[in-house]
Structure formats: structure tokens, C-alpha cells
């Protein structure tokens, strides 16, 4: 009887110890070479890359690139409700709780595209709050990073130029920012390099000119309940804006 009790106690303690060891590796809060701040919003991810040189920091949305084999620290915050940052193939999840910033570390061992999704019920479009983590070789990562720090590329065609003018004059600029133009809204995802991202609307649609137009014309048909309002544009404006945004690589 006593022997069984001792054996049971030992088994429980050993399992607990193993579990604790695993926990420490995952949830450690030491600094890492690459530091990203992820801020959860209702139904999209704001991603801020931090850099010791402030001018090298930048903001993007819904897509994270990391170099392979380098530890990455992700600082987690939320502006509204509780979300949860989870990329199953890379690490366990951690909640983004308003008023309680936290952090998580991971290292991508292999290059690839990893899909993540919000894992804490956060309202109407919790189901469609996905994100992509793209692990790539150091050189590719550095090139991507330089591209993101730069302001928007010059519009290549007349249509795109007209699109930029329409974008700034329309409600778009009240919520979205495109660095290098007068559009400086901070309420919605940053769009400076939206054309370079693989998905739109937090992992819901693959990026293409057509999908950009579809999203602008009918956001509530794709993600009912999103905070993006229905913006009335005529067909010329829509065509030019979608051409412009698709070109923001």
C-alpha cells in the first residue's frame, strides 16, 4: 500500500517535472535577435518589427517573415478582446490579453510557409483571423525586410496613379496607411506593401487584383461583421484603386 502510494507520487512528480521543463523552453522571455510585436485587433493582426535603429522598424499586417534557425521573440498585446497567437507547426499558443502584455519565443528550423490562426474566441470573425509565418533563408529575409522598411513603390501606370489619388481622396485614407502618401490612418491594416503579401483579410483570400476589388466592394459578404465599412466607389475608382493596391509590392 505504502509502496504503491510512493510509486504513484514519484510518477506524478516525474511527469510534472518533464512538463515543466518543456514549458520553460517554450515560454521563456529572454530577448532574441529578431523581435516582433503582434497586436491583436478584432479580426486582424498588426505586426510591428522592432529594431535597435528606430528608422529600421516598420509595421505590416497578417504576415510575418522570419529567418530560418534564428530565435524570434514575439511580444503579444491586444487592443480590444482576448485573442490567441498560434502557428501549430511552429509553437504552442499564447493568449493576447488586453492589459497584460506577454511574449513567446520560437525558432523556425526549416524554411516554409506556416499558417496560423487565432485560437481564442474573439467575436464574429474569429473563424477567419488567420495569419502566415514565412520562414526563409537569412538573405531572403534581409531583402524582404529592406523592402518593407521602404515607403511605397512609385505607381507604375496611369491607372495606378489615378488609383493612388482616388485612395487618398476616398474613405480609405481615414483608416489605412500607405507610407509615402498622405494616407495615414491607423485604424485598419497597414497597406504600404499589401501587394507583396500572400493573403488578404487575415488569411481569408489569396492576394490578387480581383480579390482586392472583391474585398473593397463587399467586405461583409466575405467576412460578415468586420469593422471595414461598405465604401461606395464607382467602377473607375474601384478599378484604379485595386490596380494601385495590387502594385504595392
Amino acid at each position: 500500500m505504502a509502496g504503491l502510494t510512493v510509486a504513484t507520487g514519484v510518477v506524478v512528480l516525474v511527469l510534472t517535472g518533464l512538463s515543466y521543463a518543456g514549458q520553460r523552453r517554450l515560454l521563456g522571455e529572454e530577448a532574441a535577435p529578431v523581435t516582433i510585436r503582434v497586436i491583436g485587433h478584432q479580426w486582424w493582426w498588426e505586426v510591428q518589427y522592432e529594431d535597435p535603429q528606430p528608422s529600421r522598424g516598420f509595421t505590416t499586417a497578417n504576415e510575418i517573415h522570419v529567418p530560418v534557425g534564428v530565435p524570434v521573440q514575439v511580444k503579444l498585446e491586444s487592443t480590444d478582446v482576448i485573442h490567441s497567437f498560434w502557428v501549430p507547426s511552429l509553437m504552442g499558443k499564447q493568449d493576447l490579453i488586453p492589459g497584460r502584455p506577454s511574449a513567446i519565443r520560437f525558432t523556425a528550423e526549416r524554411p516554409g510557409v506556416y499558417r496560423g490562426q487565432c485560437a481564442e474566441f474573439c467575436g464574429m470573425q474569429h473563424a477567419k483571423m488567420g495569419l502566415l509565418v514565412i520562414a526563409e533563408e537569412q538573405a531572403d529575409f534581409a531583402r524582404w525586410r529592406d523592402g518593407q522598411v521602404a515607403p511605397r513603390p512609385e505607381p507604375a501606370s496611369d491607372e495606378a496613379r489615378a488609383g493612388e489619388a482616388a485612395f487618398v481622396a476616398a474613405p480609405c485614407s481615414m483608416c489605412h496607411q500607405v507610407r509615402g502618401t498622405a494616407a495615414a490612418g491607423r485604424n485598419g491594416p497597414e497597406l504600404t506593401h499589401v501587394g507583396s503579401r500572400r493573403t488578404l483579410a487575415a488569411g481569408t483570400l489569396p492576394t490578387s487584383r480581383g480579390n482586392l476589388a472583391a474585398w473593397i466592394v463587399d467586405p461583409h459578404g466575405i467576412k460578415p461583421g468586420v469593422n471595414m465599412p461598405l465604401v461606395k466607389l464607382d467602377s473607375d475608382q474601384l478599378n484604379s484603386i485595386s490596380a494601385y493596391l495590387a502594385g504595392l509590392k
Partner: protein
Amino acid sequence: MTRRIFRLALAVLALSACQREDRTARPSPVGLESREEVALVVLSPGESQPTVRTSGKAKEFEGNAYHLSQGKKLFTWFNCSGCHAQGGGGMGPALIDDRWIYGGSIENIVQTIREGRPNGMPSFRGRIPDDQIWELAAYVRAMSGNAPSSAAPSRSDSMHPHPAENRTSPSPPVSGGIVPPSGQMPQ
């Protein structure tokens, strides 16, 4: 019998909630700016009040909890606080009192946001979609207590700059040029 009456009363109470709880996830894409023919002053020749024709769109927004909460979000997002602070006013007039220079009905507020006003109120026509202007106007009305308390937003999930809108006692709007009750000396 008593159980049946109880259930009936509950149903009646709840039916009245329909307008408060409506949530249109997918607004109609067709529709232009609603026509609101409002007067900015109370003066009109003769004995009758100025002629006012409204579109009736107010019904959809005024007592609706979802629209009021969206309006509150937009008030922060579009930086109305930059001039109006959190309703207490600064460069712009206060919004939580009963003094309305250009009229305090929801249609007047909608027109104010759309057209802008002299001395600093920008025009947001074409910059904020029409439904969102209505949401903002409904929320502005709530700031002075003129929204039903069951639908009005409660305390913010952030710093608490003014009493929650659902606990603000109503201050019925008084048009510009007339001293409102809040501005009168005690008798």
C-alpha cells in the same frame, strides 16, 4: 395560468427589444446619401416652426445598441476627440451638454458631419461612408444622454473620461441662440 401569464409578459418585454438588438451583418450596397432637409435655426416667418423633412433613416440607428457601440469606436478612430476631447470640448464645442449651435437632432448632427460647419468643423462627405456618419451621429446623441439607456454604450474598456452614456441623464437639445437650462442662473 400564472406560468402562462409570466411567459407572455416575458415575450412582450422581449419583443420590444427587437430594434435594440438588430444586427445587420451585411448592409445594403445600394443607396446614396440620405436626404435630410433640416433647418439650422429655429426662426421662420410666421407662427409655425421651420419646415423639416427627414428620410426616416434615424429609426434604424437611434436605439440600436450595435450601431451605438460602433459609433463609439469610430469616435475614437476618426479622432473626433482631437477637437471635441471626450465630449467635453476644446477647440470644438462640447458634445455632452445641451447646447447645439447648429441643431441637436440626429439629422442635424448628420448634416453637420457631412457638410462641416464654419469655424473649424471639417466636412466628412466622401471621407466617411454614410452609414458610419449615422452611427457617429447616434453616438454623439448618446453622449448627452439622448439614447435609450438599454441601448446606449456603458463604460469604456479604457480610461474613463466621462460618465458612461447609459448612466447619463438626458439633456434635451436646445438650439443655438437660446440659453439652455444648463446655462441659466438658478432662479
